[in-house]
């Protein structure tokens, strides 16, 4: 059988060099942004998952995804917001899947029992108020939850949150107000 080779007629060593240089520049630019936005991505993931190992995994995954699509991002100034959204979405997905897995494992191991009581370690780490708060935060609508978390992370002001999410400051205020109000109602 005749062997066929796929070639690109316009491709030369020069174009290879150019693409290599572009790739290197892109990587350099991304790494500069990573130093600024990496911790924020981790904290967003940590706020949603409340687990450092999972948060590391999710933040790393989000950063890699952003890296692979970095050349398609037209407005590089929006990188931080973009990364925050990717991380938040991935963290929510991870939280949902881990909840489902936990539920399945509980049913499998103890089909007739109620959800397991917190362990001694859990009790030592988190008090009742915190666990109730976490539960209440999990029940918030996603948009309100993201605004609440971003306003709590790194002391962001309302203006910074608005700029980060590219929404009007009035929207940030109203989302934050309704989120706090719902939390207070559940914890009162």
């Amino acid at each position: 059988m005749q062997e066929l080779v796929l070639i690109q007629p316009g491709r030369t060593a020069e174009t290879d060099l150019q693409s290599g240089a572009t790739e290197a520049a892109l990587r350099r630019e991304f790494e500069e942004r990573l130093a600024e936005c990496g911790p924020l991505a981790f904290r967003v993931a940590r706020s949603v998952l409340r687990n450092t190992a999972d948060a590391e995994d999710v933040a790393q995954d989000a950063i890699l995804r952003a890296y692979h699509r970095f050349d398609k991002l037209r407005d590089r100034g929006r990188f931080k917001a973009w990364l925050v959204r990717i991380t938040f979405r991935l963290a929510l997905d991870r939280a949902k899947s881990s909840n489902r897995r936990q539920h399945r494992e509980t049913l499998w191991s103890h089909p007739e029992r109620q959800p397991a009581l917190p362990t001694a370690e859990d009790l030592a780490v988190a008090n009742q108020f915190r666990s109730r708060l976490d539960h209440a935060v999990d029940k918030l609508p996603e948009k309100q939850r993201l605004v609440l978390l971003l306003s709590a992370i790194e002391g962001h002001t309302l203006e910074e949150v608005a700029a980060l999410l590219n929404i009007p400051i009035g929207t940030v205020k109203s989302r934050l107000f309704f989120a706090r109000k719902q939390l207070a109602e559940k914890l009162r």
Partner: protein
Amino acid sequence: MICHHYKHALLELAAAGVEPSPELRAQLQACSSCRSAFEHERSLLASIDSCLRSSANAEIPSAFIPTVRAQLQRESPAAPAAHITNPLFWLPAIAAAAIILFIFASQDHGVKSQPTAEQSATQRIESPVAAATTAASPSPATTAPITAAIEKRHASKGVIRPDKNPVPASSSAPEILVPPDQEILLARYADQFRRHHQSSATLLTEVAPDQTAPLQVPLIQIAELDVKPLADTQQDGQQDDLREK
């Protein structure tokens, strides 16, 4: 207990975290239960905020950024996800596409092996050149079933769709798309073209190249001229002249 009239406004005030209006401020000064409920709400919200802040600003693991940097070194910026480049990822899709193509091809073959009268008529319509080259009988009533089929289809669908009854792929005859209102005219033209073509074809077959012989022209036969002697005519002329004088 908090006054019912101000309850909603005071709780919203605490959640909003803004300064109270003069009316609410007067109420808070006047009513101790309202004041204590308002303070309780504010302390609850403050503890919520502090709790959120403490969990949200967790310490970044020292290995986090170096690990990510190391992973970035291994990856290409615009590289697609690994599973897309994996040939096994596309294998089910390719297999499904092949099965679908096979099913369509077998159905198409089954339809072509048993063509209906309407389909054969439509194929004749679609390509008058192809129709002319076929060895169909030059019946003058050929247009009748064609126009009947067209009119039937006009009644049912309204629009001719050549891709429903395609000419076989092996055929080199071109397909022609015509507006629906010119379909019957084209059918008539196709029939006339076919008849004309076949009559010319019969002429061509009569004068086959191997049957031609050298042209035999008969010899020219010229009748003999009847030449009268000139002397008689000259004497006659002289006698006429004398009579005139």
